[in-house]
């Protein structure tokens, strides 16, 4: 799985909490962890100190967990600096936090999070922190689509977190209901829905099985983003892990973007995973 994990840290608490997920994944994958703080120009001292304190706390926590850890502080443009570090250190995955303000911008335009998601040549886990602390996730909700890409990496990522937190996993698949023009929606019972589980999800579940992660599958109908947030609220999930949107900008404008909608309304912390691009 991942051998080198980078967590971008800054003065905000959500970046520290996002980095904690990286700490746990590093522990589970026995990976090296790089904690990186890039101070932008004109950063005031107190902000700098807060970020440094966060680095220090994370460093101690990582060390306590016997993780091979390195802390880097640089000055300059965060994206450029982190891109360089990613290249220089052959980083497999970058953890970055997205702020509340980012989610309010349509399509994350002009945000650092979007730059990371679009331009970094490694995998990116964008973490939306809405809850500071309650406990480790007992169950991770993983919304999955019928047609998936990077199944092995996604399953490995989920399995790594599940192992780190000793959590179970719920694979949540939302499909379009079977409809007929004159018959309307045809109701299928859960047992009947099982017969319609797409192959990719079965394969994803097989991977989880191989990683010995306890998981259950749930199939539901309805609006994607709404159903995910309702499920998470109903089952009191503490973490949602979902794949990044593969919708084009045009399709997002026309039909909306479920990932963005979940980011806005999630009742618990959320990690959006964008796997490593196929063609560098």
């Amino acid at each position, binding site marked *: 799985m991942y051998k080198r994990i980078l967590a971008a840290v800054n003065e905000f608490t959500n970046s520290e909490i996002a980095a904690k997920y990286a700490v746990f994944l590093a522990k589970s994958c026995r990976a090296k962890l790089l904690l990186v703080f890039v101070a932008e120009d004109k950063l005031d001292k*107190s902000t700098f100190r807060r970020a440094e304190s966060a680095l220090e706390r994370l460093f101690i926590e990582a060390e306590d967990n016997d993780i091979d850890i390195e802390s880097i502080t640089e000055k300059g443009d965060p994206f450029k600096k982190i891109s360089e570090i990613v290249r220089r250190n052959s980083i497999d995955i970058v953890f970055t936090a997205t702020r509340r303000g980012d989610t309010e911008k349509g399509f994350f335009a002009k945000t650092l999070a979007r730059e990371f998601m679009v331009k970094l040549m490694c995998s990116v886990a964008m973490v939306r922190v809405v809850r*500071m602390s309650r*406990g480790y996730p007992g169950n991770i909700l993983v919304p999955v689509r019928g047609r998936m890409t990077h199944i092995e990496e996604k399953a490995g990522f989920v399995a790594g977190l599940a192992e780190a937190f000793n959590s179970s996993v719920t694979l949540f698949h939302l499909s379009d209901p079977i409809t007929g023009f004159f018959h309307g929606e045809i109701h299928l019972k859960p047992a009947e829905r099982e017969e319609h589980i797409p192959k990719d999800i079965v394969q994803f579940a097989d991977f989880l099985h191989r990683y010995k992660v306890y998981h259950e599958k749930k199939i539901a109908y309805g609006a994607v983003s709404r159903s995910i947030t309702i499920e998470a609220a109903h089952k009191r999930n503490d973490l949602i892990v979902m794949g990044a949107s593969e919708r084009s900008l045009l399709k997002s404008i026309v039909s909306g973007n479920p990932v963005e909608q979940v980011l806005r309304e999630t*009742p618990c912390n959320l990690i959006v995973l964008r796997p490593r691009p196929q063609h560098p």
Partner: protein
Amino acid sequence: MKIQSLPKEDVFKSLLTSEAGLTEEEARGRLHEYGLNEIKEVRKKPLYLKFISQFTHFLAILLWIAAFLSFLSEYHHPGEGMLTLGAAIIAVIFINAVFTFIQEYRAEKALEVLKKLLPFYVKTLRDGREDDIHAEEVVPGDIILLTEGDKVPADARLIESSGLKVNNAPLTGESYPISRSHDPFDGEFFESFNIVFAGTTVVSGSGRAVVFSTGMTTEFGRIAHLTSGVEPGLSPLQKEIIKATRLLATIAAAVGIFFFSMGFLIGRSFWENFIFAIGITVALIPEGMLPTMTLSLAIGSQRMAKRKALIKTLTSVETLGAVTVICTDKTGTLTQNKMAVARIWVNNQVIDTKYASKENAAGILRIAYFCNNARFLDGQYKGDPTEAALFKAARETLGDLHAERIKEIPFDSERKRMTTVHAVFPAPALEKRSPAAFSLLEAGGGGVVTFTKGATENVLPLCAYMAINGERVSMNDNLKRKITNGYHALTDMGLRVLSFAYKEIEGPSPPEDIESDMVFAGLIGIEDPPRPEVPEAIRRCSEAGIKVIMITGDGSRTALAIAREIGLVKGNPVVVEGREFNAMTDDQLRESLSFEDVIFARMTPKHKMRIVSILRDEGEIVAVTGDGVNDAPALKKADIGIAMGISGTDVAKEASDIVLLDDNFATIVNAVEEGRTIYENIKKFITYIFASNIPEAVPYLAYILFRIPLPLTVIQILAVDLGTDMLPALAIGAEKPTPGVMKQPPRKLKERLLDFPLIVRSYLFLGPIEAAACMFGFFYVLYYGGWAWGEMLLPEDLLYLQATTACLTAIVITQIGNVFACRSSRESVFRIGVFSNKLIFWGILIELLLQLFIVYHPSGNRLFGTAPVGLNVWLILIPFSAGLLLAEEMRKARARRRRG
């Protein structure tokens, strides 16, 4: 790491805060990161978009095309009335959209009520200073200071507490004060005594807590999220309307295109065919169906209100009729919520309360009297119903007693017991005293005694002795077995059982001392009698194929006994208790729910939504009752959420579809009967409306096939569909329930509103008779006016106007016979009573007045292209109406014979 299990220092560490609280700068930053501590509505489709969608469904699109073609036709061939037609079609689209929107509209106010449960201001500690801030500015890591009367603004972990008690009713539904303390706790999050939740209230004491969740991420926010986010989806009727309109629109479009093409083949001009195509399309669309349905549902909701069920969403009226499962609370809904002491268990024997006396039950009743907060004021027992019942039994047996209460440890849901300490004078005759105890009480002329009452599993472990026939005997396994047997004997009678104990102490003592080595005094069984009408309502549900699932906070034996008493279960039902429920997977729960008789005991409202979700997944139409704030998500999730009008919270009422004004289960069953009746009636008036589509369509077919003047104009069709037909149809919608309506199973999901028998009856039986009448009327006027076959008449020709008027009048007259025919599908109208629905006669009267206006008033003539006709025209059409009714009676008689 769990927030509840951390020591204070680690709580600070995990939330990046300190004993002095956050700095103002850090708090500002966190406010920016995490947002305001507020309850927000989940983004939904705006109301205006919902309204606009009523103009874009398949039927509406078809009508838009028809309107557009009408305007196009007017542009190319002005003066043929196509402008009026186009405008009329657009009016139809608007009328249907408005009425459908009214059906689906529901005011969403639950969140507004929820918001009122959060405080406006809260005392926080920032930079080491106490300050009052707006509650919405509270952020994770803030230290909040809580004192008596405060509302908790966010989910927080206690770090200091002093006698802190909170009321968690908005989250748990239980209004007992619950003790909270700051010590770390290794158990489950929701059972943690060191957590305070947003929306709850501090009843007494004080404390400091560190906020870890704000706004929509709190437990309270979770309820808001589920309440505003859960959408139950379309009601069964809405689904059927969509299917029906798609079917009708397709038929209309197909017939229009088919005959348009045929017209070409037989050499008709393009514009003749065009008029025909639009006409046949309009004729086959029952424009009045949706408005009539909406009005009928509105009338149904008025009828239900008279039966004490207040309807909040119109479609719920019909959904009730489709309900297959009712999940109901017990206390107050199936039972009267009038508690009374029924049995007392002392000295290993059960005493009927009627025979309780100072001689056989003084000791236990004395505890019931003192360890009690109910009072007798103004001739009434006031207080919690259980306490009032105990106080009444004690007072009526022992009379008024006096003692000074020194201390009270109130009941809470964790301890499940209440303890009071009293200075008693004279000494209570609880037992024959041991010399030591006797001297203790007598020395000062009285004594200090601790009294405890509560759940047996929580009181019995405190007891080292038991009072038997006035002797204090050391507790042993044999005695415990006898107590357990006594407990089971009482619960098997359907009684809620409380245990009673006491202890003589020397003076002020710590709680652990006053509640140890107690003397077990006995058990009292309290009954909450079932509502008298409930057994009959349960029987009706059983006959109607509706499964009733009881969900109660009571123990399983009590629940089972009540269920048996009201006839809810017969054999050995599946009983699922709260703890077991929590451990079950969805598949296991699904299996339990598949059994015929299921009872859920020791449940809390938060469990309901899971039950409702699984039942709905299985294709059931679910009604659920609720009264608490945390019932709201389940009420929203269910097909029908039923809130209690008397005991229900405002949040539950706002989240529900129906409010029961009397909290009575029997009212639900009455409402189901009304719902089923409304569905039956909708089918009846659809048959009535559809029958008139055939005489509206046949003139167009005759026009295109036989080259005759058009016997009926499109405007005249609309006069029937949106005018004369409407009130008689509505009158059918007000038919009373047929006797067997609650003796048949709920209709199946596959059953269509427009089913084959309905279409055959209206299109192939009733419709053709009406069509024959209208063609007869048309030709009767033409022939008597000197018309010859093949002669084409100008649209303004008086003879032509009179002929189309006769055609229209024929439809109106035959629809009078039809309205009686459609009052039932099998029963003879003479058996159900010709005059049993007086609204029918009002409907017919208004129908006739409208027709008289159309035929004889100049404005009616101008608007609908009609001309006055003689009485003879009316008279020659009446036999058709009578014939239709007669033919229908014969068909019904045959159908009855076939059915046996």
